[in-house]
């Protein structure tokens, strides 16, 4: 299972990488929007996790989502928001603009892993159908 994680905070990126790798996934980290857009071109991705605040003068996660949505080959790839914006209403806001799921920081890994597992099983089902 190939996962792209767009995150500017290095520590968070690294710990997430470790956590997901342990659960039998391949994780690619992109520090900013433009890098992420490059990566999606070359990789077959099963899931994309996007942080919203991507730092100073940078494209933010919402803008990045918009760009992803324009890419036809990503139309079946789920995109989740993983962010420290966790005030009331934030979750709905992100779902509304098009994220498939929303996870607040600190991340509840049980839930995140469960969601990943679902994607994986759906993926397997699709494969067996073929």
């Amino acid at each position, binding site marked *: 299972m190939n996962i792209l994680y767009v995150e500017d*905070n290095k*520590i*968070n990126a*690294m*710990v*997430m990488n*470790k*956590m997901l790798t342990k659960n039998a996934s391949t994780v690619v980290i992109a520090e900013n929007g433009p890098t992420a857009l490059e990566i999606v071109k070359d990789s077959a991705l099963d899931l994309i996790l996007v942080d*919203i*605040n991507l*730092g*100073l*003068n*940078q494209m*933010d996660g*919402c*803008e990045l989502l918009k760009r992803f949505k324009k890419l036809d080959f990503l139309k079946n790839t789920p995109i989740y928001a993983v962010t*420290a*914006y*966790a*005030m009331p209403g934030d979750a709905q806001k992100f779902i509304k603009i098009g994220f498939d799921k929303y996870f*607040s*920081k*600190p*991340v509840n*890994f049980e839930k995140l892993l469960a969601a990943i597992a679902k994607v994986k099983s759906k993926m397997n089902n699709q494969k067996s159908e073929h």
Partner: protein
Amino acid sequence: MIFDQNGDVCEVNKRCEVIFKLPKGKIKGQSIYNFLLDDDELIFKETISELYQNKEQISKTFGFATLASDAILYVKFDLIYSEERIYAFGIDVTQEHEEHTLLKSLSSLTKTGAWHYDPINDKVYFSDECYHLHDLEPGTSLNMVDALHYYPESSRERVKNYWDNLIDHGISYDYVDQILTKKGKKKWIRVIGEAIKHKDKVIFVNGSFSDITDQQNYIEQLKHNEETKKLALKGIRSGLFDHIIETNMVFYSKDFRRMLGLPLDTDFVPEEAFRKMIHPDDLDEAMERHKINLQKTGYHYFNHYRLKHLDGQYRHYDVYGYRKKDKEGNTIRMIGNLIDVHQKKINERTIAENHRRLTAIVNNSFAYTLLLNTSGEILIADKDSIKIIKRDFGVDPTTTTCRFIDVMPVNFKSTFAHEFNEALKGHTVKKEIERMTIKGSVQWLESKYTPIRDEENTIKSVLVVFHDITEQKTAELAIKEAHIKEQELSNLKSNILSNFSHEIRTPLNGIMTICNMLLLGEENPGDRKKLATYLDESKERLLATINNLSHFSEIETIQKNLNYVEVDMNYTVETSFREYRHFANSKNLEYILKLDENCPAAIIDEDIFSTALNNIIHNSIKYTDKGKVVIKVKNEKKKVIVSIKDSGIGIGKDNLKKIFDPFVQESIGLSRKYEGTGIGLSLSKRYIEILGGKIKVSSKLNQGTKFIITIPKNI
């Protein structure tokens, strides 16, 4: 005289020669026509031929011009025919004939005829003029009963009575009546009848019959004129007067004298008596005017004063007169009219009073008030409007007709036509408009257009009032602004919370994930160490956030525990500069410090000043990726200026004023471009302000930001 059929004279006697004033034998053989007056020639011829036919005697009078031609001779002849000859026996009636002619001409000139009546034979004779007056041919058969028919029916009985009394009792009469002539003309006549009696019995009646139509008409006219004058005098509530200057007596109409209580038994009143009626307050001036008026050139006269009526009330009069002058130019008589103008005066006073009230209302009720006619021309305007129109357009609407639309502020024009037309349709319309005063301040006006109708309910004018609602509007705007501010504060609060939450959650995410992994049992010792380092870094960041927050909340405590000392500003700034040299170097920035050679000193709390300065320096380096950061100290007379200038990303105009708000940095909302709690700059500002200083910022996106700190040398 004997003559033949041709009028040739055969024989005359001596007496004849004498009255014809001819020498003896001269007339014989001449034609009688040589002497006859032209008018009589025809009659003579006819008479002769009649004689030759009938051979009966005829009596007739003929006029002759005598040979001396110095007089006319009238002879009354008895003419007899006998054997082809005419025998004429005549007597000289020249004198009688002249008398008769005179009487006839008198009768004709005076339009008076004579008549007489013989009661014994019941015969009436009318002179020619009597016939003429009735438009009848002289000699027409006419008796008294016939004559009665020329009178109108209503008069006949009366006239008949006169007649009977005259004949039966000898009572003379003299009456005036109207007749209708044969030709249908109406005539006024005067008829006189007088009886001649013998032994108390009427034996003859003489009378006259005169046409007095002209006199009668004149009298009628006179009566009518008199009546007109009387009615006119009664009709106008005024007094006609006729002032005879010489006697100083004045004629006043009776009604007028009655009204003033002047004597009624005489038409003329002494002027002094009248003078007493003039109001004492008006008397001197009135007499002065009177004097001047009588002496001035021309013929007119004018005066005015109050007159006391019989009821004790004074009324205003205007006096108009026309003067008659003698050869020397002195006024000798004046006729004129006293006109009661009391009501007019009262009306004038009422109008003036109403006008003053209206002006007061127009000038004081509203900011501006104008009355327009249906063409939009100004009828009335308040004095402020007039002032503005005069000032801005050089037109005085009180003297020059001008349309309001031509003299109004430009921004009124677009809406005026619409509102005005609505008002003309009968609607009352309101509209708020903005106006710039000459002083440049904004004035808010509420304009109200009210149609004004006349008695027939037709709209004749439109009242436009402007009500100054600037205060109201300002208050409204203030409320709106306060509301926005409140909204902003509320937004700020949620932003602070949101940002703060974000800043805590981010490192907490790292901490919790690492904890999780450690708890799950990370066995690789190298990895474990790495995780521990990550843990430490995240912890540091969390702590910094919390420290900043506590700094911010501790400001009040700080304020109470300040430690003011005189410090060398060069030294203090250099210390802070040095602290970030490493950071700046790590980003390969040109990092420059420019100190002031005068070594300015200031009394400050060094700790909080340094904290504030450090924050700003840190901020500048953090947001500058290439170029330079320049820190400069500058001495001024009473203060020290410290500026921090960078070539960094800059701050947008809209956010520039908000960067000192706690927790709010350039990014507001989802896209937070700054890292950190956002407390730093607001804290710096509070610290500098505590020290009595100021902090200013200017910035351009993608070009850099400059902070200027001003610190007073002595607080």
